[in-house]
């Protein structure tokens, strides 16, 4: 598996003995695709001026934030940088250092407000804050707002005239009106942003006094480099550069003439001069494109497998099996389900059921993983037993409790728990015996009073997944069916993806089938910390955590400080996997195997593993597998009339 970090732009790196910093040594002589040299300045620029810049919204910052502090990247010399954190944190290497694409300082520095202090840009920033909260400000102090607008206008004129004294004359009343408004506002976003506006106004004055009048607005950067940008404006370090993007039709790439990687014979990579990524909406049409030779690769859906494998010989396609990928697919049950229907006594009782680990274990036994794999993945799915991704070196199936399909065992466990079908309607009831054992009530009278009559307390809950994901839909349908066999009613209803995650992260759901993408590192604080934003199975743990969750959290935190894989496994993650699979906060399902069909004219594709290699498909095209055509194939393609302006 490709789980080790491979030297790339950084030829080597050294973790300091205390684990508080990493020093990276960059390869010499690398150039951006426009020919400019790549140096430590670009690295520092990317981290300190873009990713860690508060003006710029991005989701890379999270991977580089350790204990609420953004990583500090500093230049050691032209070809070495040092990244320091406030506590040792192993995922830094992958999530932050490997996970961030570097940006060319010489192209982009001019769009970053922080590096281009100027009166004009700061004035725009003040204006945009005021526009954002105009309503609130109007309500708070209409008079001050009028004065503020006048001052902003005056400031604009002063900047236009490039007169620092006039700028000062405008900034003073501007600050006064801002102060008045800040006093009139209640604490909150508006007030915080007005405080920021004050600092923008200060910056405007300072810049004007330093004779810098133009400047860049703080929201400029997020809108540079979009689909409209002329290709020559981009510069990158990858194997290809952009030639053109035709909206909704194709992305045309050509080789980066300055790409630094060479093959074993010293030939500069990539082999292709051009790469056309054709955009095809419909998957059936994608398959037709492949079959007719208009595309060279097709990621087959499971329902196409029979056809692809059957025709491969005759059509001279190479088929590549890949997977399981990083990530997991699971069923989660809401252990705070009482909150979904606060007045409903059955849901109050159901919460005790959801919280019983034996119940979740029984459900795990009742799911027929083999049938799921046969029906959905034509027998090629693999069961997963823990949170950590299967290809990760931190995954260890041996440490996990496994739940092979066993209906009688599942039924026995539910009977033992006291979940029996008292009214003979095929659905198990939450009996007094169960509730008393869970210390929810004292005797039958008390139970009936608290949770309603026993016959009406059925183990029944809604089950959702996102519409359009045919695989999860099929899984949910099978789960509904498997649960019915053991007397549990899960009413399946697909939902729109946004609605599903809103319900999930708001704790408003019964059961959800969903999957997350994963990575090599097992660290997931957002999920495993009891007050984590994605602690979705039991948000109430924030105030009242079960013992095992605290232990799991501890293992996550302590484990993340250890850099050696074996040591981390032995000390922390084996126990973590054991806890995870015993208490089953989520019930793990099966994981997909992918099948790619590739035109055999593309050589060298044996190692093409975009899924378990943890790389997006088109990056894998350029980065890990180098493909070329043989002469025979060229002849065949000329015959087909396809060696014109297309990829050579």
């Amino acid at each position: 598996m490709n789980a080790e970090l491979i030297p790339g732009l950084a030829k080597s790196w050294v973790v300091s003995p205390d684990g508080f910093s990493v020093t990276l040594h960059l390869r010499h002589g690398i150039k951006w695709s426009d020919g400019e040299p790549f140096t430590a300045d670009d690295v520092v620029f990317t981290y300190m001026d873009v990713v860690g810049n508060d003006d710029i919204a991005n989701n890379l910052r999270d991977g580089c934030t350790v204990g609420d502090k953004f990583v500090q990247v500093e230049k050691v010399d032209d070809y070495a940088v040092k990244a320091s954190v406030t506590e040792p944190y192993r995922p830094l290497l992958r999530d932050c250092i490997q996970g961030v694409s570097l940006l060319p300082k010489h192209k982009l520095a001019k769009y970053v407000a922080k590096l281009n202090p100027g009166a004009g840009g700061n004035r725009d920033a003040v204006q945009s804050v005021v526009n954002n909260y105009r309503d609130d400000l109007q309500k708070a102090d209409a008079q001050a707002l009028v004065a503020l607008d006048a001052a902003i206008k005056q400031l604009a004129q002063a900047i236009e005239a490039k007169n620092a004294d006039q700028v000062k004359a405008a900034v003073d009343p501007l600050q006064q009106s801002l102060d008045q408004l800040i006093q009139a506002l209640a604490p909150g976003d508006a007030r915080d942003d007005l405080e920021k506006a004050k600092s923008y106004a200060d910056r405007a004055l300072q810049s004007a006094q330093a004779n810098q009048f133009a400047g860049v607005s703080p929201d400029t950067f997020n809108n540079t480099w979009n689909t409209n940008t002329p290709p020559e404006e981009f510069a990158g370090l990858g194997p290809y550069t952009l030639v053109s993007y035709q909206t909704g039709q194709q992305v045309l790439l050509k080789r980066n003439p300055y790409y630094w990687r060479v093959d074993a014979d010293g030939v500069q990579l990539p082999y292709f001069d051009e790469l056309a990524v054709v955009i095809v909406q419909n998957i059936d049409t994608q398959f037709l494109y492949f079959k007719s030779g208009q595309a060279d690769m097709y990621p087959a859906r499971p329902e196409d497998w029979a056809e692809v494998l059957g025709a491969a010989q005759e059509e001279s396609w190479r088929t590549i099996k890949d997977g399981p990928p990083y990530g997991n697919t699971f069923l989660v049950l809401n252990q705070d389900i009482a909150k979904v229907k606060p007045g409903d006594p059955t849901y109050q009782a159901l919460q005790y059921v959801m919280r019983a680990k034996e119940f979740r274990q029984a459900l795990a036994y009742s799911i027929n993983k083999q049938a799921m794999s046969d029906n959905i993945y034509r027998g090629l799915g693999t069961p997963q037993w823990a949170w950590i991704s299967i290809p990760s070196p931190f995954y260890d199936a041996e440490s996990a409790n496994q739940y092979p399909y066993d209906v009688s065992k599942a039924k026995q466990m539910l009977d033992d728990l006291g979940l029996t079908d008292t009214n003979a309607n095929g659905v198990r009831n939450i009996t007094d015996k169960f509730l008393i054992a869970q210390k929810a009530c004292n005797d039958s009278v008390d139970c009936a009073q608290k949770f309603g009559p026993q016959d009406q307390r059925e183990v029944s809950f809604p089950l959702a997944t996102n519409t359009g994901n045919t695989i999860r839909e099929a899984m949910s349908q099978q789960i509904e069916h498997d649960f019915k066999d053991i007397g549990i009613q899960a009413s399946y209803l697909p939902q729109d993806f946004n609605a599903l995650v809103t319900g999930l992260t708001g704790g408003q759901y019964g059961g959800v089938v969903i999957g997350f993408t994963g990575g090599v590192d097992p660290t997931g604080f957002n999920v495993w910390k009891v007050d984590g934003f994605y602690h979705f199975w039991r948000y109430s743990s924030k105030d009242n955590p079960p013992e095992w969750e605290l232990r799991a959290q501890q293992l996550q935190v302590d484990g993340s400080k250890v850099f050696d894989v074996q040591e981390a496994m032995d000390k922390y993650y084996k126990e973590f996997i054991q806890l995870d699979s015993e208490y089953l906060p989520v019930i793990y399902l099966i994981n997909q195997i992918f099948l790619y069909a590739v035109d055999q004219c593309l050589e060298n594709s044996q190692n093409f593993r975009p899924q378990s290699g943890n790389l997006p498909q088109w990056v894998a095209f350029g980065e890990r597998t180098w493909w070329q055509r043989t002469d025979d194939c060229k002849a065949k393609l000329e015959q087909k009339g396809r060696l014109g302006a297309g990829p050579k």
Partner: protein
Amino acid sequence: MLSYIIRRVLLIIPTLFLVSLISFVIIALQEHYNGDFVTQLKGNPRVTPETIERYQKSLGLDQPWYMRYAKWLEGIITRWDFGYSFEKRQPVGDLIMQYLPFTLLITIPTALFVWLLAIPIGIYSATHQYSLGDHSLTLLGFIGLSLPTFFSALVLLFLLTDLNYPAISGIFSQQYIAGSPWPWNWSWGKFVDFLAHLWPAVLVIGGASIAGLMRVMRGTLLDVFGSQYVQTARAKGLAERIVIYKHAVRNAINPMISIFGQFLPVLVSGSLIAAQVLNMPNLEIFYFQSLQPPDEYVVVTVLLFFALFLLVGNLIADILLAWVDPRVRYD
């Protein structure tokens, strides 16, 4: 007549305003219940709520919907600016101009195909009522009507792939994709390539609407044949050709013209599924992709555009009606 047209054109403005307001309210409701553009980030446990909030702010989604609507409206009125696409990070106006040519390249030939075929067939069916030709043409038309477009599109694609037809879907072959789709960037080869890609789309999308139109034409013409002035014309001994084309068809064409007003928007919105299967990068696909997660300024602007299509189509139909039929007068 001129004052009537001016009045109708002026009426378009408040109508469009209402359309945009209602669309925006519906989008806002959807966002309220199902989450907005940044909610999709919540499906990734590596993204913290703070990051999501920051995105929300940078897109202006932390503002209440009426503020966003007012800002959008202000942009249109003061700067002719239709807002910004969250997904593509480009002005919506620019994006629509990128997708619009593909819509026009498909709808105009399709409309021509449908009308130039449906009217003669309708006339033939009416004049040869219950003949073998009438029955066969009607049958063909109904097959087109009853086959779902995605299905006929797929069947056609499979057939063409089997025949090694070089232009199975999309609008251009790969070597002609580059360059602007607007007519000032074409060569003869590109045009031929376009025609090779066009006919399957026209057949699939147009084939679905021929039957309806043809039946309307047939029905009204048969009605007219029963009227007294046609009998009179025949009694006078006029040639059958003159009776049909000079008297009957001229009167029977009125409902067809009214239908024409609603036909363009139907073609635009009705070609979504076929366009997806046939891989046409047109406005409908763009609109469809912008619905989920809601790219609100794109959705509301495209809806506005479709409404404009409908209103202008109807206006043109009314003007044509007055032109064709001297009895129709507007004051």
